[in-house]
């Protein structure tokens, strides 16, 4: 069910009226089935752009994006997407009906839709909030609903673009634990964008470090620390140090 993702020599050039911006330059990497890959890099290095190409919102100028070995095409949607923006939920639908949306698009019968949605809300710890509208939920809860919504229709891959960047530090720690648990439970192929090194080390099986503008792959760092990871352990700190070194942020 989980699918592999291949980026082959992917380049993206934004063309506006006034200028051209080379945002992503010849990026290649692979995400194995059920692998958790973190995409890390400084602001403006093209993380969101890469994410949008994997999601199919943007077509690469050169190169290919393959999901499950097949080219992305407009009709076959097999990915779940979670954005940074809390406003991604539909305000006119309750939490449960938001989670049902992807199932509705696949013509899943009503009763089954409801059961599945409740099951995924339970997975993110929000079973009691099924009939609440998004504006009645906190930012962290809204992002949890968004995660449930993005995986409820069992897409082969899950894409997350800094989903917790706008949350306070304490809630973010909690959310990271939740993502770790959800991933261990569902074993999706995940691409997770962040510019937070500790977050990447906490979550990733592997971290792809991108160079600043234009985005190029600078390093790929495998992380085989046991899960759940302890941010205070020596190996965790060591991994962070390695990545910071690649980012050129170490003194």
């Amino acid at each position, binding site marked *: 069910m989980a699918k592999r993702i291949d980026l082959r020599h992917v380049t993206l050039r934004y063309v506006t009226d006034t200028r051209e911006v080379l945002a992503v330059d010849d990026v290649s990497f692979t995400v194995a089935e059920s692998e958790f890959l973190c995409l890390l890099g400084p602001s403006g290095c093209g993380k969101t752009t890469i994410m949008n190409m994997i999601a199919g*919102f943007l077509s690469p100028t050169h190169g290919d994006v393959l999901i499950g070995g097949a080219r992305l095409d407009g009709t076959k*949607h097999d990915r779940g997407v979670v954005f940074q923006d809390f*406003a991604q939920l539909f305000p*006119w639908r309750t939490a449960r009906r938001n989670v049902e*949306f*992807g199932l509705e*698009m696949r013509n899943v019968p009503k009763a089954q839709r409801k059961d599945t949605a409740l099951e995924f809300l339970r997975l993110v710890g929000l079973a009691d909030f099924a009939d609440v509208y998004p504006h*009645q939920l906190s930012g962290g809860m809204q992002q949890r609903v968004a995660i449930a919504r993005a995986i409820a229709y069992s897409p082969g891959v899950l894409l997350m673009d800094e989903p917790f960047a706008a949350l306070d530090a304490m809630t973010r720690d909690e959310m990271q634990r939740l993502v770790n648990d959800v991933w261990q439970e569902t074993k999706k192929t995940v691409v997770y964008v962040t510019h937070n090194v500790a977050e990447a080390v906490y979550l990733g099986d592997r971290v792809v470090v991108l160079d600043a503008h234009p985005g190029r792959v600078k390093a790929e760092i495998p992380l085989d620390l046991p899960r759940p990871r302890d941010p205070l352990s020596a190996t965790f700190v060591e991994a962070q140090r390695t990545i910071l070194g690649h980012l050129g942020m170490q003194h």
Partner: protein
Amino acid sequence: MSRLSGILLGCVAFVVLALAWQAAYWAGVFPPRLFPSLATVADTLGRLTINGTMLVSAAATLFRLLFGFLLAGVVGVVVGLLMGRVQWIEDALLPIVSFMYPIPGIAYAPLFVLWFGLGDLPAILLVAVATSFTVIINTWKGVKAVNPIWIRSAHAMGASERSIFAKVILPGALPYVLTGLRLGLASAWRILVAVEMLMSVTQGLGWLIFGSQQFLNTDVMLATIAVIGIVGMLLERQVFLRLEQATIVRWGMMSA
């Protein structure tokens, strides 16, 4: 301020207006025949209500309003949605809509009388024409204001263009659509009363006022004006306020 004292204050304004009116009456600013006391107006209102005149007139006016407004609402929402979503339709229609929008509907009244004669049909059509542009413009703005992230999310979840239209654009644009309908209904109500004076319909609130002029029945005129105000307020409060409460306020898309 508490809700109760707010309501009380609102009532005080009515009392002040009533007292000012009575003062003017007692002072004899106009002859009593042209400027009746409030008691006379209330009396007339009671009489016209009991003998059914007011009810029949209001029903006739509401009938025209309902049809004209429904026509404008359906056409306006559909055209507005299409304009907002389909580029070539927007290119084709926006200039003409922007041109028609500021023209007061009443300006067409004499033309409509020449084209459609007298009676209900031209009145209904005129209300529809006068109202639809407000609905179109607001619906179109509403589609433009739909948060693009909702559309992206829906796309990611495999929604077809049709599902996006029905399940994202329509509810997403609802705050503006409702505003358009509300403004449309208010302008329909205003124009209809004027239209009934110009189109010699045989019943209706506007007709009641107009017909009273030659007999100097100022008490009837004032009683009818009061009814027009009350019906307009009920439409606003009972229809739109409730509709908003049940939808966009409940969804947090508009604060109460």
